[in-house]
């Protein structure tokens, strides 16, 4: 039987994600980079007590609607954009490991509200150390010394050691139970390519978990992806799901 990692539905792909899981959530800042359908499927599954990692804690449904209506910026928000903030807003998240837990001005995002109420835990970490800690998990490195963060809040309680006369802080790998990521094309082995800046944390998180699920625009024939240009190699990806041809306009619709 040929290897085939393609799942029929997002619901099936996340069905065995259990309460209390740690989940790497791909994406960075704009709608085109997030695994929206996988986030929606996790919202529908109702799984709770999650630890999420990612750049940003995300927006509530109302905030997204407002931003869509206002067309903030000149990049439009598609109707099927679901932010990881949905999981926060719905109380499914116990802890966040983020570089941007809150907006420094303006909107109060759901995570900030819950943090102020003492209902979620935060581990604040700079983007570079976050990315490297995730990469370390993929690469089997337990911990590493980086110069970044020494003397600031992110290094509190962490070991500091000098190398070549410069202090470095010890950061630990972040291996998740599940990585949910967005890519452009996949083949049935799970090889992935991305589209421009959607590579970001998506490629970083692939393989940094026991289970990596990729939401893709398209599955192509084996051999169609150029072996010189594959960004994420097949072993890192266990499941692939294709985004629907017809845009889903509510996260609540099974998909």
């Amino acid at each position: 039987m040929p290897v085939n990692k393609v799942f029929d539905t997002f619901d099936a792909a996340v069905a065995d994600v259990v309460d209390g899981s740690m989940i790497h959530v791909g994406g960075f800042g704009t709608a085109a980079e997030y695994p929206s359908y996988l986030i929606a499927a996790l919202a529908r599954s109702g799984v709770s007590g999650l630890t999420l990692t990612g750049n940003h804690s995300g927006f509530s449904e109302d905030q997204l609607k407002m931003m869509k209506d206002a067309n903030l910026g000149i990049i439009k928000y598609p109707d099927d954009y679901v932010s990881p903030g949905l999981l926060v807003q719905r109380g499914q998240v116990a802890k966040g490991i983020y570089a941007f837990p809150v907006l420094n001005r303006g909107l109060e995002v759901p995570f900030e509200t819950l943090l102020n109420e003492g209902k979620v835990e935060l581990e604040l970490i700079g983007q570079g150390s976050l990315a490297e800690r995730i990469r370390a998990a993929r690469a089997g490195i337990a911990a590493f010394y980086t110069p970044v963060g020494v003397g600031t809040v992110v290094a509190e309680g962490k070991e500091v050691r000098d190398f070549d006369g410069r202090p470095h802080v010890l950061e630990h790998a972040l291996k998740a139970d599940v990585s949910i990521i967005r890519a452009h094309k996949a083949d049935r082995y799970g090889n992935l390519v991305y589209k421009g800046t959607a590579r970001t944390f998506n490629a970083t998180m692939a393989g940094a978990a026991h289970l990596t699920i990729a939401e893709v625009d398209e599955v192509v024939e084996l051999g169609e992806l150029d072996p010189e240009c594959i960004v994420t190699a097949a072993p890192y990806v266990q499941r692939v799901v294709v985004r629907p041809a017809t845009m889903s306009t509510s996260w609540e619709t099974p998909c």
Partner: protein
Amino acid sequence: MTNFEDKPRLDEWSMAMRASQDVREGMIVNLGMGIPMLVSAFVEPEREVMFHTENGIIGYGRVIDDADAVDPNCVNAGGQPVERAPGMSFMSHDDSFALIRGGWIDVTMLGSLQVGANGDLANYHPPGKVVGSIGGAQDLAYCAKKVVVLMTHRTKSGASKIMQQVDLPITAPTCVSRVITDIAVVDVTPDGLVLREVLSGWTPDEVQQVTDAELTVPDDVVELSL
């Protein structure tokens, strides 16, 4: 402290224009959110600079303001759509920060809330917030070859943002080498802050009056020109 309300100030675009003078051909440059992101508009394409953005482009082109020309998969860290430029490449977030941490960024320009006389950078935690968002500025502040801050000289309520000692949580210690404000250019040196350029309409003494930190005024201080 006098407010000097009637005195001239550079607007954000003019500050960016002044900052663009510090960007030289062949440099790898990272522009932080806010005013710094305006700088690329003043770097003509013939001056071959590679602009890096944390979310994984090295060598992007101009910021796009035509909605029809936008590619949602080619944006900078501020979410602005940018042009594809010849010689650019995409990379993952870990690769992008490996580039930063490895010391390959020649100059980063960052916004800030405060800068200390010793070069301390405090740009992530606004007063009154329970937490701040440290984002990607920290790696840039620790690892870029040169850190230039672009910020207004004072807060809206008139408090100096160039402090003898910052009183907000720091993003990175002793990392800033230059501050470009709406009225002056100040360098952080081993001997303290040195006033390099003053906006027309201000005297060095007046700049000092609106600055918490002590400024050294050398003989060769010049007028800030765009």
